[in-house]
């Protein structure tokens, strides 16, 4: 007797948001973490005695961890569980009585289809050919072609953009509605999908034209709902918190969740526990400095050590450098657990990292367990991205948009070329899960040659080398391993990606 009333449908919609949240809060290998490990922002890192799964990803080389053939099983399952909830709700909408609130029908459908599109977009980027289910089924569904999947994603996003009322969730009310899907979020995500699909596959058959996509981005700008913050570091807790008296943190420099630059965020809460509440940002703890609390930075498991070449890529005047990167020696951080750290480079991610109080205890709410109580939101789409995408797609205001981003970083104007925009994106969006996909959409060979490298690092305090080979990347075409458990369960209907068998 569920899915009858508007209240039922709203509740089921929250269930869909929760499904999307679980792709991070279930504690499986997250899309964000994978994106960073694969990129040239970070190495795999983690503890010196941990399994070498992250190394297998970082190097596109399963022989780094031969037994790890299920790295993504949880991730895969989380995404399909989320998609199932969306499909279930969509299939039931016709049976819901919307008489009391007729306008809710398309809004709920729009939000749901956005979430489905977002989850498919993550899946298709990770694994390329995945089963495409648009209705609930227990059937053994074979993998669809990327073209079919991207078409479905574009259709869902177009629906969301066209049908979620522009005033459904105004920014003015962000304190209550941040995290909700808006038509602007749909337009911005559609641009990201468009750029990736046309860039990687070199075809333009998404069922939406470049002009339409750009027009969507211009709508976002014209809405005046969003803007760039004045201070770049105000975007991130660890970049803006300052240790203060009485074992507190001065948080006044942080712009907070749902600030005007957030176009869409995956929300988290500190209520996670081991008794059925799954609301936390479970991957944040992976990014923290290994076993090292240095207020305002909190300890974590030392994944994703920062590549020296990214550090070197920042101009010394660039305000984004110190806002993005923890420089362990440069900030005089002592007591770092070098012995426990794998692939130590001296640098760590500052945007997404746990925070700590001056006395070295973790700064989280909830049950204050640094492993599960982390609740920093993941900003999926930031307004700066809207500006840079619009510039890249040839907006008449391209130079203005580009300069706005550069000026905020404390840099002077530069010609708005494709190459300059992509370089800007690397620095502006470092550790925001975008770099790898930005590389891949420039073509596999560009991506492979950029990612390949040999770098000296320290593992467990002794010399070690990260060797990433171009051939390994080319072999996999940039896609990940489909979990063996799922292939076995499908009795071979699912086919493994090249380079991972």
């Amino acid at each position, binding site marked *: 007797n569920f899915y009858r009333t508007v209240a039922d449908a709203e509740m089921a919609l*929250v269930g869909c948001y929760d499904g999307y*949240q679980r792709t991070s809060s279930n504690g499986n290998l997250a899309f964000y973490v994978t994106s960073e490990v694969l990129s040239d922002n970070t190495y795999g890192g983690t503890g010196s005695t941990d399994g070498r799964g992250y190394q297998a990803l970082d190097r596109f080389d399963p022989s780094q961890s031969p037994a790890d053939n299920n790295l993504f099983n949880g991730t895969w399952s989380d995404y399909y*569980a989320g998609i199932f909830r969306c499909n279930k709700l969509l299939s039931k909408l016709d049976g819901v009585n919307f008489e009391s609130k007729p306008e809710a029908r398309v809004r709920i459908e729009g939000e749901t289809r956005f979430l489905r599109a977002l989850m498919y977009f993550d899946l298709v980027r990770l694994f390329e050919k995945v089963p495409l289910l648009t209705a609930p*089924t227990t059937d053994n569904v074979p993998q669809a072609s990327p073209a079919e999947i991207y078409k479905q994603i574009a259709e869902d996003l177009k629906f969301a953009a066209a049908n979620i009322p522009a005033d459904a969730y105004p920014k003015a009310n962000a304190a209550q509605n941040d995290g909700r899907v808006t038509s602007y979020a749909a337009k911005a995500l559609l641009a990201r999908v468009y750029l990736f699909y046309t860039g990687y596959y070199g075809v333009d058959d998404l069922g939406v034209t470049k002009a339409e996509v750009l027009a969507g981005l211009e709508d976002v700008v014209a809405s005046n709902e969003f803007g760039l913050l004045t201070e770049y570091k105000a975007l991130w807790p660890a970049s803006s918190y300052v240790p203060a008296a009485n074992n507190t943190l001065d948080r006044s420099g942080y712009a907070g969740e749902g600030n005007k630059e957030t176009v869409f965020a995956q929300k988290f809460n500190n209520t996670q526990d081991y008794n059925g509440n799954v609301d936390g940002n479970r991957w944040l703890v992976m990014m923290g400095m290994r076993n090292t609390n240095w207020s305002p930075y909190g300890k974590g498991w030392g994944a994703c050590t920062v590549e020296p070449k990214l550090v070197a890529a920042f101009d010394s005047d660039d305000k984004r450098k110190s806002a993005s990167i923890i420089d362990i020696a440069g900030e005089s951080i002592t007591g770092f657990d070098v012995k426990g750290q794998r692939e130590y480079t001296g640098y760590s991610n500052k945007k997404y990292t746990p925070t700590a109080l001056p006395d070295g205890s973790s700064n989280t709410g909830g049950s204050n367990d640094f492993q599960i109580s982390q609740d920093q939101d993941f900003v999926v789409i930031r307004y700066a991205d809207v500006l840079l995408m619009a510039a890249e797609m040839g907006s008449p205001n391209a130079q203005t948009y580009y300069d706005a981003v550069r000026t905020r970083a404390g840099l002077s104007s530069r010609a708005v070329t494709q190459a300059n925009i992509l370089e800007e994106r690397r620095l502006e969006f470092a550790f925001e899960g975008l770099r790898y996909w930005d590389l891949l959409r420039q073509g596999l060979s560009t991506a492979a040659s950029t990612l390949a490298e040999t770098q000296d690092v320290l593992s467990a305090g002794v010399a070690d080398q990260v060797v990433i080979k171009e051939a390994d990347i080319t072999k996999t075409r940039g896609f990940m391993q489909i979990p063996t458990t799922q292939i076995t369960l499908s009795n071979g209907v699912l086919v493994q990606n090249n380079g991972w068998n």
Partner: protein
Amino acid sequence: QTQLIKGKIAEVTGSPVPGVNIILKGTSVGTTSDANGEFSLQASTSDVLVISFIGYQTQEVEVGTQTQINVVLQEDVSTLTEVVVVGYGEQKKKLVTGANVQVAGETLQKQNQVNPLQALQGQAPGVSIMSTSGQPGADMKVVVRGLGTIGNSGPLYVIDGVPNGDISILNPNDIKSIDVLKDAASAAIYGAQAANGVVLVTTKTGSAGKSQVTFDAYTGLQNVNRKADMLNADQYKTIMNEAALNSGSAPIDFSSMNGLADTKWMDYMFKKNAKTSNYTLGITGGSDKSTYAISLGYLNQEGIVGGKAVSNYERYSFRTNSEHKLYDGILKVGQHLNFNYIKNNGVDVGNQYSNTVRGAFNTSPLSPVYSDNNLYDSPYNDTRNSPWYNGDGNPYGFMMTTVNNRNNAQKMLADVFAELAPIKNLKFKSILSLNYYSTDYRSFKPLYQFSVYSYNSDHTTTSQNTSNGNTITWSNTATYDLDLNDHYFSAMIGMETQRFQGSKLSGSNWNLLSQFNDFSHAYLSNTVGQAHLDSDGNVIETRVVGGGPENLYRRVSYFARLSYNYKEKYLFNGTIRRDGSSRFAQGNRWGVFPSFSAGWVLSNENFAAGLSDWMNFFKLRASWGQVGNQDILDFQYAAPINTSTNVSSTNLAANYTFGNNNVNVPGAYPSRFSNPSLKWETSEQTDIGFDAKTLGNRLDIAFDYYIKTTKDWLVTPPILATAGAAAPVINGGSVKNRGVELGLNWSANVGELKYQLGVNGAYNKNTVGAIPTDDGIIHGLTNMLYDNSEEFYRAQNGYAIGYFWGFKTAGLFQSQDDIVAWKEAGNGVLQNDVRPGDVKYVDTNHDGKIDSNDKTDLGHGMPNVTFGFNIGAQYKGFDLSITAYGAAGNKIVQSYRNHANKYANYTTEILDRWTGEGTSNRIPRVTETNVNWQFSDLYVHNGDYLRISNIALGYDLSRLIKSSYLSKMRVYVQGQNLFTFTKYNGMDPEIGYGTDKWVAGVDLGYYPRPKIVMMGVNFKF
């Protein structure tokens, strides 16, 4: 003309027998013998004394001119007149046509075990009983005639005619007999609950005659039989250094680390001389109108892991049974009341993440037990700063500090019954029973800091849970016996209804009042944690409360049985039962379960008359039947919508937080698919066997051959992740069990020495049929042997349920040449950078690479063969008994070490590792990775064992101390589990534990069964 006749009644051995009935034939006049076996009564010369006593042949003695009549009782070795308990009734043993086995209460009591099922081990062929843990009060894994399902495979327990009782809490001293119904024909009268066999327990009742008081007591000391032999500090350093060098790391400079310990964790984990004791007082008696039995018991068993504070079992048991005849026996009414109060606490005995003992295997000996204060108390003892590895937990400190739990359970099983016999041969019986439980659990999580991974530094947590529920069962039967000369009929029809209801309540809160900050004060009322604001100004609710009903369950059943025999020579039985259960959707609720069985007593045939000297009795029997299994949770046929209420670790909330106020908005989603067509699991079994008595009734033989096919398993198969929700329970999958069972019992006298020998054995072969999933496999769990370990057991067509699935190995690479030759022969290697000393994983499909396609059957954890023997001897007041049981054909997967942690300790087996050509062909070189420890036959050990579970020697002091009150005063010494013969190198080869209920023999650091030395007394007044 009567005169006083005196007499004495004795056994063959000469010892007097009290309580014997002596009646004047044809009258109700009589007496019973006293404690010295003596009696006196008035009788005339023409009277005949009828002397009867249970277990002995009834004798008649003409009085004549005698005034002193001494009688030597002859034991009734021909137990053919014995009755056995069958479903909803009793039957003469000689007329039984099914396969069942009866174990007398005395046999069980002699074992002095806590749990009646432990005492049953090795006594009943075809009934495999394994402990799942050696922790006091732990469950037993009972499998009758092979695993029939991957679902619940335990038998149905029927206590005094009431189904679904909890046998494990009964005091073995209260049990008169246990009957196990093994074949489908015997069990089919219990229909939908009987697919895995039925265990019928009958508790003691009184008998008319002299009242008797018994007092039994024992006390004993328990110790671990064998501790795992772990590396000491020097050995550990050698191995760690070698692993580092073999993995290309720098050598480890231990000399620069100050304060390295040499801790023998195993010695800390096990408590020496843990105590156990038991006291039972029993009173029985009655008149020819009323009989009664009352008992009172107390038992306490400390755990050998950690001792009483962390592992303990205490039981108070009360029982009264009575029976009363009214209206000249036309109406009989009675009652049974069993009440048990159990207090227990325990360490974790589950998988690798909740196994207290396992911690001791994975902590280096270099870490200290104590930091400074030599106490495990609040404030906590911080041992995280080991100079060697700050990830080393402190398994002993962790156990003594964090294992704070107490479970109190009250269980009552009570019934009243009435039996009406309005006319001859017609009987109505009605039993109304109440099975009530109430549990009350609390736990306390204190502050502690044992490693950088193992700590709780923010707040303490106190939890309390209670639950209670009751099952009401009402069963009614009508029996009519018809004796038409040589044709004997007995018909029974009946119905039974059952209803379960219950509720539960739980709560937890942070932080105790500071003056009450310990476990003894850990009650919710003493907590101070209340909603407060955290540093972000968010409201934090620290108190969690929940409560709700248990799922209501109802069942209705109708059943009938017809028995027929012709001159007790040709026997026939047929039963049918129809069950309706609320566990299934409407339309699938009803199931029908038929059975037929027949017997032929050859020894009653004329042609066999000449053989009767040595073949005293021979009966062939055959049976066929169908039984069901409905043992799943309620509402599995429906698709629930999860609405963020009743949140638990298995029922996750669907909340999302919008805005920046950290408020959770509840959502909803369907968490499982529905399967409205769910129906009964069915087991069909054919049994052929014989019962014989030979050599002057001294040798009993029972033999059975059976084929049992269980189909339409109630299983939750793995489902493709694309489905997006949990799989429903479905019907699918089948398994065939085939086997033979043989039981031999010999009893005889040699002069004053009386002795009995019993040997039994059973062989079972288990083969899975088709599994209804796309890949035809039910997969085992992952992450079970060590962190991130792969699946290592599964259920698959053609193999035993839960067979171990992994790589075969072919020794080690001894040299570079060896590696080259191996690869040239077309074999793959798993190691990325293979070196001499690495394991040769066998490329079974010879495709040049090692992957999961090379994994194969490495054996299974359930034994093919189970056996037992027992020896008893009595000589002039001395008695000796020995009981043993064992298993063969079973494998044990031993995974003590978490290979994902390079600092984890090893057992001393690693000292035989490969260190150069020819040094070892089994234990690979040590490295910091686990590439040589992928799941392979290196983990698999032979689990065959023979355990002498009990040796007891006693003497009856009443032979020396003559007292008119005391008829028995036996003192004894007893040893339990003193000897275990096995090649298995773990702590205990009897491992019923599995990471799923359909797998056994998984040793992750098993809580071993203790070795117990005890002494005790049995008084009888």
